[in-house]
């Protein structure tokens, strides 16, 4: 456990400080984008395509414009005048803002109606007449790659097929040889379906352009306000938008999960609309628009293989993936990593050789491939390796826990360089699995399962021992459109010893206003109740790349610690001056410097802060402030072992999670209560795609799962009682030894659940099942259909 160095009153690392943001949420005083109201504000609603692929023959706005309250209809032609009908994606691909001649997916934006009320805008949408001529639709990414498939991106010069990128890592020759020489090889096709973050707040914007000042103010659901501001300035510079006159305020955000990292066409249309109409414009998506058109997660078709010795020693891993990106690559990976951090696919095991390749493919589906509560394709990679390990165990007749224990990278091997090129910072994988097995009573469960099986009852036990990679990332490898993935903190100590902290990351529910205060409390000994944390306003916060991929604590958390330490260094000089001793004669304990051996001769941090403004040493600048832009030396590698127990209704195929033990290790913990909350939420978000959620399409590209009637997000009723425990293996390179935890559970939970269900049915010859494990799918497996 994280060592407590501060009192509960100070509330530094390891204290379950109550969330400072909660009173306003509990009292309905949160301020979300939809709460923003500006004088003279107009409302925007979007006309969307019913076709997945079609020519636009005409758009007629006459009837809409004649409807009471409709002020304007914006089309691709309107934007073309400003050369804003296309925009770059964060992956350097291009995306239509509004189309001129062609739509590429169902629910694509076709035109926007601006009106005096939401009702008038919605009526106007019904009245815009669009004539389409349907084109051949490409939905299956494998068919998209076949010779003769229609080339979808005819707008891209030199694009001869539907391939977006090819990415690979590892040593192909060595891997092929290892497979040839191995005693045992297994292979499995695994599909991780398209899913949606479905955050409780949909996306939206209030855009206000002051044509006199040339100032554009945007209240926007953004996980990365600074990066978005820079992109807007770069894309719309030619129409006079200048970065110092763009202010993005990302207010309270009702969940991001990666879905609020992309720049959606709706934002850009609203910006164009405020410039064109001169009025503030509000656009807030409906739920169905959010589900149907906003960026999806996953959609990875993997062919995964593993080679091993007869005794279970894993030797080599090979995974070939087709990644369906929809009609444009609007994923949100770091630019040099088109397949994200899929290289974590070797998981918690020391392979001798591995080779992974991913081909990105265009189809007539909405764009995306965002890191849905996952540090860039880690969920897919972990699913592959943790399924393969169980299949290997089944083939060898070994206990899956024993097989994992036999193969884990041992604690003394860290830092561990994987064959796919990542350097794992620290880990104790066997420790986490051992604890999970003890806590859940693994041996007793095996016995119970044996007895139940004899009675014809279906019970399964599944393990997932995942390794995550988060905290992007070191500037040498990680950037988005060239912007390096550092992050920042700015700390000001006021004369009375109270503190303002501003950070470059943006909370969407993570509790930054509490935890970043705790980091400062830990470093400076100032009570967390005296520390105010601000973020999300580009006019005031220091530049940062935002919150996603569990990067806030690893990167901005480190910046906050480093800035605090700069302040402590200056405070020491002031303390030495006040106490009339040399700096070398001082010792620090949280909250005060004192003369070595004379604890009474001390200056508290508050006294020092006052002196910094009233009695600072001659020759020293007044004030007590610091800024840090932190460039992490490496990623962090949280890990854990999850064990899931399921019971299956053989009549209906319904899976019931009876128990789920999650042992997580995210290094040092800032706030145990918040970590616990993150894990509970993450487990539920991991269970969701494992059992329920999926977005799919028919052959014409019509979406299934485009509303909450069909997109089955679990409620509390479907959520089992999560059991949790911790081990603590600090990150050696992080200033406070923390690793990030927001996504571990989402990544680790699905394979544990699938492994449990497959285990329950293994005596029936079931070796693998694709998620979501719907009752019918399981019923078919039980009945051999």
């Amino acid at each position, binding site marked *: 456990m994280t060592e407590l160095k501060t009192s509960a009153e100070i509330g530094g690392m390891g204290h379950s400080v109550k969330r400072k943001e909660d009173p306003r949420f509990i009292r309905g005083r949160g301020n979300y984008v939809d709460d923003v109201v500006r004088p003279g504000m107009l409302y925007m609603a979007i006309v969307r395509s019913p076709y997945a692929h079609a020519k636009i023959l005409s758009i007629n706005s006459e009837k809409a414009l004649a409807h009471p309250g409709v002020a304007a209809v914006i089309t691709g032609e309107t934007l073309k005048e400003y050369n804003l009908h296309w925009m770059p994606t964060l992956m350097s691909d291009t995306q239509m803002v509004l189309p001129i001649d062609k739509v590429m997916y169902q629910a694509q934006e076709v035109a926007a109606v601006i009106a005096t009320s939401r009702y008038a805008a919605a009526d106007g949408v*019904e009245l815009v007449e669009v004539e389409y001529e349907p084109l051949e639709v490409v939905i299956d990414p494998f068919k998209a790659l076949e010779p003769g498939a229609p080339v979808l991106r005819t707008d891209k010069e030199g694009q001869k097929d539907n391939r977006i990128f090819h990415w690979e890592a590892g040593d192909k020759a060595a891997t092929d040889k290892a497979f040839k020489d191995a005693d045992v090889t297994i292979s499995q096709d695994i599909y991780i379906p398209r899913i949606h973050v479905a955050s409780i707040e949909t996306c939206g914007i209030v855009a206000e352009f002051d044509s006199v000042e040339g100032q554009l103010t945007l209240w926007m659901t953004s996980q990365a306000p600074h990066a978005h501001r820079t992109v807007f300035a770069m894309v719309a510079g030619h129409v006079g938008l200048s970065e110092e006159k763009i202010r993005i305020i990302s207010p309270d955000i009702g969940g991001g999960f990666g879905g609020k990292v992309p720049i959606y066409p709706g934002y850009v249309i609203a910006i164009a609309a405020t410039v064109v109409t001169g009025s503030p414009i509000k656009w807030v998506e*409906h739920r169905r628009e959010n589900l149907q058109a906003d960026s999806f997660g996953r959609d990875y078709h993997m062919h995964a293989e593993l080679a091993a010795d007869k005794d279970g020693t894993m030797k080599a891993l090979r995974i070939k993936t087709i990644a369906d990106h929809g009609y444009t690559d609007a994923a949100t990976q770091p630019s040099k990593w088109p397949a994200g951090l899929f290289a974590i696919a070797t998981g918690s095991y020391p392979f001798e050789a591995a080779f992974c390749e991913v081909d990105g493919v265009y189809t007539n589906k909405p764009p995306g491939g965002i890191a849905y509560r996952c540090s860039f394709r880690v969920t897919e990679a972990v699913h592959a390796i943790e399924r393969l390990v169980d299949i290997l165990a089944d083939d060898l007749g070994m206990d899956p826990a024993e097989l994992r224990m036999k193969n884990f990278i041992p604690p003394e091997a860290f830092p561990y360089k994987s064959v796919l090129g990542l350097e794992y910072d620290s880990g104790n994988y066997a420790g986490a699995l051992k604890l999970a097995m003890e806590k859940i009573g693994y041996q007793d469960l095996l016995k119970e399962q044996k007895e139940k099986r004899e009675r014809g009852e279906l019970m399964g036990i599944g393990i997932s021992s995942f390794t995550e990679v988060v905290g992007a990332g070191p500037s040498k490898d990680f950037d988005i459109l060239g912007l390096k993935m550092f992050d920042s903190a700015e700390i000001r100590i006021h004369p009375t010893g109270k503190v303002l902290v501003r950070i470059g990351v943006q909370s969407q529910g993570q509790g930054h206003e509490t935890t970043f205060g705790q980091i400062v409390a830990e470093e400076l000994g100032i009570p967390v109740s005296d520390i105010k944390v601000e973020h999300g306003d580009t006019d005031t916060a220091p530049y940062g790349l935002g919150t996603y991929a569990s990067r806030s604590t690893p990167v901005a958390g480190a910046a906050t610690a480093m800035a605090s330490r700069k302040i402590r260094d200056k405070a020491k000089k002031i303390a030495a001056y006040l106490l009339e001793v040399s700096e070398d004669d001082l010792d620090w304990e949280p909250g005060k410097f004192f003369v070595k051996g004379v604890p009474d001769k001390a200056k508290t941090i508050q006294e020092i802060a006052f002196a910094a403004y009233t009695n600072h040493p001659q020759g020293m600048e007044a004030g007590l402030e610091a800024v840090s832009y932190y460039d992490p030396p490496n990623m962090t590698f949280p890990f854990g072992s999850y064990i899931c127990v399921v019971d299956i209704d053989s*009549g209906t195929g319904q899976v019931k999670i009876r128990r789920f033990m999650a042992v997580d290790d995210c290094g040092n913990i800032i706030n145990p209560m918040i970590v616990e909350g993150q894990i509970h939420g993450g487990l539920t978000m991991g269970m969701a795609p494992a059992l329920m959620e999926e977005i799919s399409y028919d052959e014409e590209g019509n979406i299934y799962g485009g509303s909450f009637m*069909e997109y*089955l997000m679990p*409620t509390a*009723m479907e959520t089992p009682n999560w059991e949790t425990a911790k081990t603590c293996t600090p990150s050696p390179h992080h200033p406070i030894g923390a690793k990030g935890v927001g996504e571990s559970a989402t990544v680790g939970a699905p394979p544990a659940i699938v492994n449990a269900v497959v285990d329950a049915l293994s005596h029936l010859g079931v070796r693998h099942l694709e998620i979501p494990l719907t*009752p019918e799918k399981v019923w078919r497996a039980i009945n051999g259909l």
Partner: protein
Amino acid sequence: MIPGTFEYHKPSTLDEAVALLASLGDDAKVLSGGQSLIPMMKFRLAEPANLVDINGLEGLDYIREADGYLTIGALTREAELDRSDLIKSKYPIIHDTAHVIADPQVRNLATIGGNLAHGDPANDHPATMVALGAEVVVFGPNGSRTIGIDDFFLGPLATALKANEILTEIRIPVPPANSGGAYIKFERKVGDFAIAAVAATVTLDGSGKCVKAGIGLTNVGPTPVRAKAAEEALIGNPLTDDNIATAGRLASEASQPVGDQRGSEEYKRAVVEVLTKRALHKAKARAEGGK
């Protein structure tokens, strides 16, 4: 998610409501709990020009036994059925049903009358009322008339209710001694319509023979389906595992499911069979005095 334009009417008497419906013609919808109609309007799947809100009508909200019938006022909310002691103790099948309709927020507003009058075979009360052999009372320009449940549902979202009539009451014969019933719903998640659901009622004689049986199926046909052959197979026989299994098979054969996102036709038939057996076992246990 934003409805089109409509006129809103709020009559204060039944006569006024029916007169309004008569004058507005086909372009009016009755607004009861609004838990089906309002979502359809928000998706613009329904765009009635007029809404006649009957929530202001007095005397349509009751649950009582009289003259050999359990009578339930059409404006009775699902939440009231869910917590009624009379329903819980004497009509657990209705409690089973009300309890699995959507979610608590919906149940606070949704009414039993609306659940039936909407004519959706995916709704839960219709199958239960089929199993219970209920009648519905409707009020129109010429006063009240009573419609047997088997004559009420005509097709998807179509009932024997005329455009100028309002459903006012549900009448259920008080079951004889040694009767029991159960409703079992299998759904993808809480709040969803059923993949399939089965309502079963049985009455036993002194020797344990089944003298009366009712089986209604939810969401596996254009209307709630009465599994007649299954009922007949039980009547006159003891409710042995074998006989219940036969009834399950016959109910499955009687169902008319269509494959969709909730499951294939084959799967839904299998679910009907399993749920029919489970519902019959539970109904039998309740008839024998169990829970």
